[in-house]
């Protein structure tokens, strides 16, 4: 019984008994309180400044940000971006916020709703929220948001609604708990910029195994 042996050793080392109620209470308290630790001042800002911090930090992380006023501009902006970059194939999550857009009818763009496959050039997903502190976006896995879309395609296009912007990570956890009070989704991704590696002579190269480019469409009125 490895588990019992490990626990016995730990308790012997700590000189505590298995049923020490004081210790159990301390653990219960901490787990229940979910208290924040120090939150940097940088992340505690009024909304307007939070937005500029997010834009600044996301750009620093080498994400590319395209600012729009609302979702009605989204399809056009995505189509423009794809055509400028010579991409005519887009995989999206099966999410009505993304599929029911005013996509143009006279285009060569092929859109598919499915998880990603090797060879996909671009994907479009919805962020659950955005975190100003480090210019990070949060996504989770679910029926309408497969995780592979965030990692396999060469270019990852993410839609962020301004109203989902929070300052520190702690606020993002609160939102996540509100949305999923029972248990976490299988995968929660915090993404800050495109994939990279400095494993060859410490020289930074973009586009290791994940997306080479990360494009954030920020919807200011939503």
């Amino acid at each position, binding site marked *: 019984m490895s588990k019992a042996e490990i626990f016995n050793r730990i308790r012997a080392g700590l000189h505590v008994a298995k049923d020490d109620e004081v210790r159990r209470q301390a653990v219960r308290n901490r787990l229940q309180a979910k208290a924040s630790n120090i939150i940097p001042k940088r992340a505690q800002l009024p909304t307007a400044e939070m937005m500029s911090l997010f834009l600044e930090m996301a750009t620093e992380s080498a994400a590319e940000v395209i600012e729009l006023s609302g979702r009605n501009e989204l399809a056009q902006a995505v189509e423009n971006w794809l055509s400028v970059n010579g991409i005519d194939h887009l995989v999206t999550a099966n999410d009505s916020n993304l599929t029911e857009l005013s996509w143009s009818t006279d285009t060569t763009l092929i859109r598919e709703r499915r998880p990603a496959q090797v060879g996909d050039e671009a994907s479009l997903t919805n962020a659950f929220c955005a975190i100003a502190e480090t210019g990070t976006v949060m996504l989770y896995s679910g029926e309408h948001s497969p995780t592979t879309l965030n990692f396999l395609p060469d270019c990852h296009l993410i839609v962020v609604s301004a109203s989902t912007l929070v300052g520190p990570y702690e606020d993002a*956890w609160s939102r996540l708990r509100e949305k999923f009070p029972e248990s976490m989704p299988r995968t929660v991704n915090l993404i800050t910029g495109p994939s990279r*590696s400095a494993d*060859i002579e410490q020289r930074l190269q973009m586009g290791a195994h*994940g997306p080479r480019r990360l494009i954030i469409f920020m919807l200011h009125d939503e």
Partner: protein
Amino acid sequence: MQVRSPEFKESARIALTDANLQKALGNLKAGFPAKRATAAARLPEFEALRDQARDLKNHIIEHLDLYLEEFERNVTANGGTVHWCRTAEDARQTILQICREQGAKTVTKGKSMVTEEIGLNEYLEKQGIEPVETDLGEYILQLRQDHPSHIVAPAIHLTLDDVADAFHEHHKRPRSEDPAVLMQEAREMLRKKFVSADVGITGANFLIAETGSTIICTNEGNGDLTQTLPKTHVVVSSIEKVVPTLEDMTLFLRLLARSATGQEFTVYNTLSTGPRRPGDTDGPENFHVVLVDNGRSEMVGSEFQEMLRCIRCSACMNHCPVYGAVGGQTYGWVYPGPMGSVLTPQMVGIEQAGLLPNASTFCGKCEEVCPVRIPLPKLMRHWRDKEYEKHLSPAAVRYGLKFWAFFAKRPGLYRLLSASSNRFLRLMAGKKGRATRLPLAGGWTDHRDIPAPSGKTFMQQWQEQNR
């Protein structure tokens, strides 16, 4: 992995004259320390976060069994399975068993030092299962049948030339010396492996008791492909990585990337909780967490307990003059640098690793930068004491210390001797003021000069000033 720590002195001698290695190590010294300093300076709360992280880790260790219990409960509630492994052998067998149940032929791997610690790759290969490292650095090492020399940047001991040669040989493509081209080659080669693997193995930076989640922090995205595409995801982690809540994990995340690479945040911080849910269209169907003890529970309550605070950021080795001079492989086992000099004797025995805690200048830089404030020099000294007690240190050291103690207890003689050795050193140094050779100290003077003492002994100065 074979323990080569007893050869430390010989390996160090070779490393110091290895021009290729010295060039590669130059990249490390030029990079990480300055980046960490900048990142720390940008966050005014950095020092306060370190204090809080130290205290939280102490709290966790004092309640380690209970947080682990809670973690297991929540992994199970979410449909995953926790496996407890006291030894490296237990862990290897457990992982093999999971692979066998899946009929696995190929296993992709994200970066994991614990799997290095338990020698997983060699073991799986012997059992006919192909492990494929997918982190770029680890992939390069696997092609070269090499091992990591650094816990964050595993291939830091190699130059661009080394990588170009390895890829040219294994990929059968024209040789390129462009890092971007080389990375693209690896990307293409590994895509096929990601989709064809039966099992994906990753490490974990933290285990979250509250939710039963594990988290990996990576820049490449290979860990995410490793754990999302195969049918089975196995997380291999050590027991001290548990944290109570997401908020507590956040405290360490704010310190980890800044201390390691000087980044504000790692590109991908990914939480995994159980297998895919009903309705999910991708993700693994099975989720296993293999918890490895391998000597850690013995550290609880010992003089090395504080080492369990380590979050594997690598700052201590990035700032260590000894590591910077000889590189990670000289340490002869999995964990190099100051943290390795404390951990390796625990895991492979002081008999084999006794030279490591001695390979220190005790400059204190490691403790100065450690995000969880581990007193590394003090812990190395504990090992030296233990080694001395066991009479494991070489006779010359033991007799040397006895010799010194004899004189130190006799102040008159001591003063006479130190004043005369001062004169002796000045004599050896001559006009340049630096001695290039000293009898009985070849290990030191082969690679550096010893400055001649300028002026009086400490005791002489002390007496003069307190007159």
